[in-house]
């Protein structure tokens, strides 16, 4: 028997085929689009009702999020307690999720109980009334939670970063206690009626979405749900980045500083986006990234540091974020600058790049764990206005992009002096 060779890695295979499941599509008579992903693996289903947010009004900045969060707080026929009781009794989860571009209601439910829960969702989406008493509770509790959040340096840094980069838009919003106080029930009702219309709704079903289940959903949401005649205004004001690029929020007693550095950036529809995802991964997009290797694994300044690209409908950002020992804030920023400049000055070695290629493809494959993940991938494409060829282009880019192209991209897109820099803590 030969001696086991533990020094050398076993032979391995590249990821060749990534198969994405595409949905069935049906457009209902009232204009609502329904996409479904069927799998019999488990007797459960997730259904999302997704509505584009209305145009941002700086004088009423919280309307989109408050209306969304309060959808489950009462309809003309059901109190908030009755809604909660019924959803919980059938072991379902009904949640309101707010995103910068859209608001959604998500239902997780065992398939066998769907017929009990669907009528409640219908009421919530078509007939929410935002009871005064529940609104008071919402405002009071949100104000308290905000007080706690504002004690966290990472949250302060993120709020300041978004506000600086996006200005007074839906993306730059940083709610204040006063914003909560000014919420009015009538405004919320008006907002609700304009936004939660079938023509502004996309339904995505994933799980045991067989024929009967689809019919149940279609029947429920195609009938007695009409558009108001006034289309939802889903345009958005242009982001207005601030001229000030350095923001220091001093916290004399901080043990750590939260640092956020970045810039307005291209979003997913731009042809360079997949290429920049490779560049981002090299810099700070995975555990073995340059930022982690240098600032955590070599210097021990932080528990974690990473970079990312946020792709929104009307904007995008590139950012680096970390919480670091308060005494090493300056050193950390200097190291970040060094790593950015290295990408501009030197070619990424082929060995490192091939690791990143394989990691990214394995990560994509691993992200397709079950039917819900396939629906998530579709959602990303659909709301960016892209088709499935995006993922072909993505895998193709990951496999073939060259060190020379990446260096060019770094020079085209990264200018550290022009980056916005936010520090909450000590500097």
């Amino acid at each position, binding site marked *: 028997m030969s001696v086991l060779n*533990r*020094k050398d*890695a*076993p032979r*391995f*295979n*590249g*990821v060749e085929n990534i198969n994405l499941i595409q949905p069935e599509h049906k457009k209902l008579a009232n204009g609502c689009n329904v996409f479904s992903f069927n799998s019999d693996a*488990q*007797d*459960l289903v997730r259904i999302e009702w997704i509505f584009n947010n209305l145009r941002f009004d700086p004088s009423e900045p919280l309307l989109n999020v408050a209306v969304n969060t309060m959808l*489950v707080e009462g309809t003309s026929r059901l109190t*908030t*307690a009755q809604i*909660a*009781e019924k959803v*919980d*009794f059938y*072991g*379902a*989860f009904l949640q309101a999720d707010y995103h910068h571009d859209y608001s959604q209601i998500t239902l997780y*439910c*065992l398939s066998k109980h769907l017929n009990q829960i669907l009528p409640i969702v219908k009421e919530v989406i078509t007939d929410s009334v935002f009871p005064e008493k529940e609104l008071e*509770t919402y405002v*009071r*509790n949100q104000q*308290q*939670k905000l*007080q*706690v959040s*504002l*004690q*966290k340096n990472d949250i302060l840094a993120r709020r300041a970063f978004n506000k600086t980069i996006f200005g007074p838009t839906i993306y730059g919003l940083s709610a204040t206690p006063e914003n909560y106080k000014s919420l009015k029930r009538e405004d919320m009702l008006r907002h609700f009626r304009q936004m939660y219309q079938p023509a502004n709704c996309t339904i995505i079903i994933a799980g045991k979405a067989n024929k009967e289940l689809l019919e149940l959903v279609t029947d429920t949401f195609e009938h007695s749900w009409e558009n108001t005649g006034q289309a939802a205004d889903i345009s958005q004001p242009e982001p207005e980045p601030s001229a000030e690029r350095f923001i220091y929020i001093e916290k004399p*007693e901080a*043990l*750590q500083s939260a640092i956020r550095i970045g810039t307005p950036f291209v979003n997913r529809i731009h042809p360079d986006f997949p290429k920049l995802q490779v560049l981002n991964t090299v810099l700070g997009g995975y*555990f*073995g990234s340059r930022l982690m290797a240098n600032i*955590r*694994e070599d*210097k*021990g*300044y*932080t*528990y974690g540091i990473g970079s990312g690209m946020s792709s929104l409908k009307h904007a995008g950002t590139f950012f680096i974020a970390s*919480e670091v*020992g308060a005494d090493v804030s300056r050193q950390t920023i200097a190291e970040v600058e060094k790593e950015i400049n290295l990408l501009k000055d030197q070619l990424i070695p082929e060995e490192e790049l*091939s*690791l*990143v290629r*394989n*990691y990214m*493809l*394995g*990560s994509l*494959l*691993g992200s397709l*764990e*079950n039917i*819900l993940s396939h629906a998530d991938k579709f959602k990303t494409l659909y709301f960016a206005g892209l088709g499935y060829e995006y993922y072909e282009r993505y895998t193709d880019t990951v496999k073939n992009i060259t060190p020379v192209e990446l260096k060019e991209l770094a020079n085209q897109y990264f200018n550290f002096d022009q980056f916005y820099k936010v520090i909450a803590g000590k500097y």
Partner: protein
Amino acid sequence: MVKFNRFTLSNGLRVIVHEDSTTPMAVLNILYDVGARDEDPEQTGFAHLFEHLMFGGSVNIPNYDGPLQMVGGENNAFTSNDITNYYITLPSANLETAFWLESDRMLSLAFSEKSLEVQRNVVIEEFKQRYLNQPYGDVWLKLRPMVYKKHPYRWATIGKTIKHIEDARIEDVKAFFKKHYNPQNAIMVVGGDVKTEDVKILAEKWFGPIPAGEKYNRNLPQEPAQQEERRETVTAKVPLNDVYIAFQMESRADTGYYVVELLSDILSRGHSSRLFRSLVKEKQLFSEVHAYITGSLDKGMFVLEGKPLEHVSTDEAEAAIWHELEKLKTEEVSADELTKVQNKTESTMVFSEMSLLDRAMNLAYYELMGDAEQFNHESEKYLAVTPAQIKEQANKIFRKDNSSTLIYLAEMPEEVVDIIS
């Protein structure tokens, strides 16, 4: 129903294989039967620090992460008071890379001084980020020593103090490895697009030659039943007052555990739960209030936590929580209310089975508790719980002389103090 096969290598390593051909991925999960409870009281935080060092290179492989990323894999790990768990997910075609990496670090680490020095700093930053630089972040550092006087659960996984982490020496690291990191103290689960026969061959090849090592015999001081009310008040730079009431409860392995978990669900799961309905919505005393249990392998904690609204004193807040607890001690819950939390548990379990990694981790954990097969019988145990049992457990647990109350008082800003004085 999660199907699996089981075998044990001659060195004592227990292996479970869970075949699932619907995914192109594989997971390799290794649970080591060691947690913060196994630490020396003068060297706390060590199990967790050690977890970090497991990524600092092994005897034959200088870099752990690189080769895994090269084959499209990802990994992570966590440490609790009871266990340390490491996991890899990767394309199944590259499963052998996971065996190569995991077996080498079970065989021996590189024990590099540089890695120890860096990871000490990283863990100290983690200590600050999660426990010290957050409002209420230090609650577990304060609450645990109130509930536990003898058992090592009296310190948190991160450790009692940063000093213990600063003091860690390479000799301690070596001794810890020898004591806990060997095949006899580990359970490996391989799942996903794999075949049991292939896993047997790979396990024999890579793990078979590792010496069995010494069996660690756990002999921890058990926590005596609490006999007196405990209470502490701290003034802290937090924006709101906060009330914690913790009780001792039975261990995860006890039959009463399932009853107690449903008891906590009745109090605090979902927006129809009692604490939320009564204290947040109807009486409007709290902005948030929660109940949860730790599910520890030794005697556990049942914790209630709530942030009262600004006009509500902490005495009133405490009394309101106790009022809800007393109701559970005197009146049986209705059949509907019990069915509700049972249904919720059932659907949660179905949803959690969608994740291959969750299935693998659960199989390892149930095997540690005695039998992986019990993972498939969890629902029955929750369904068998009766209203009488809920009331019985409420009476057993919710006693003043079994309670530890920790009150955070928000420190008033200076300008407010000036006005009052």
